[in-house]
């Protein structure tokens, strides 16, 4: 019984540490996102308009996290098809230690830290953006070491 209680306490302490510890997310993350796109924008070029049928595209993206201060971090993201077009990223880690929310110039990011070097990244872009395009995308990203 005493061993069981000790084990339980040890487990609770580990869980508390896991919640408090903020992972270092800086680095270069690369992955492929599958996107549904109405219209076109810099990452999904074309002549399609938002009133036309949607396109389904797979695009490799890089996300570079250049700075972090506790639970908030920032950096840039770009399509590997054209690294000259870069988006500014502001991101924050929720209290659960694995949910990440963020924003760029025209869209919202929702991410889950799956493991220390793997993130599931989803993105949504409303039609109020300058391009008028409507986008939803998800994909897994790995940290390059």
């Amino acid at each position, binding site marked *: 019984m005493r061993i069981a209680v000790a084990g339980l306490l040890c487990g609770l302490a580990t869980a508390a540490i896991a919640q408090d510890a903020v992972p270092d997310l800086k680095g270069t993350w690369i992955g492929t996102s599958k996107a549904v796109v109405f219209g076109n924008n810099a990452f999904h070029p074309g002549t399609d308009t938002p009133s036309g049928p949607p396109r389904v595209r797979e695009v490799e993206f890089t996300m570079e996290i250049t*700075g972090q*201060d*506790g*639970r*908030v*971090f*920032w950096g840039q993201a770009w399509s590997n098809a054209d690294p000259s077009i870069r988006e*500014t*990223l*502001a*991101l*924050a*880690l*929720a*209290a*659960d230690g694995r*949910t990440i*929310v*963020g*924003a*760029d*110039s*025209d*869209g*919202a*990011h*929702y991410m889950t830290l799956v493991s220390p070097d793997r993130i599931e990244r989803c993105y949504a872009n*409303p039609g*109020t*953006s300058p391009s008028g395009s409507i986008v939803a995308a998800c994909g897994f990203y790995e940290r390059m070491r």
Partner: protein
Amino acid sequence: MRSAVMLVLAAGLPAGALAQDSAPNLVGTWSGPFKTVIFGHNPHHPGSETVSNPPRIREIEFTMHFEGQDGNLLWGHSWSDPARKEPFAATINADGKTIVGADTDGSLTMSIAAPDRIDICYTHTGLGPSQSIVASCGVIERQD
């Protein structure tokens, strides 16, 4: 053993179903500190910075007043400066715990951590009038 399992199932299932169906009452005033990364500036994060400048890290106290609730739907105002209140609308997901919402220019994602404690995050794309880009998380606690 079989009767023990039946007893647990019989006792547990209605409780689980009830927990899913009944939305917790969140009406009241909640506040807490938020840690924010911001490119540019806006009324909550004043300054002369633009989105092309380096980001700033700021910690501000935020208050959310949940003024009304109809089942899973919530509404109210939020502020960092009481002179400048912003309306928000939100809804509780079917899990009874996750809340998503929006205000005039940003999105809210919340998780009910305890009856009087909510983990909350806020994002704001560059599409708002201020063109600032913001991500922020914090914990708010019920004040009344």
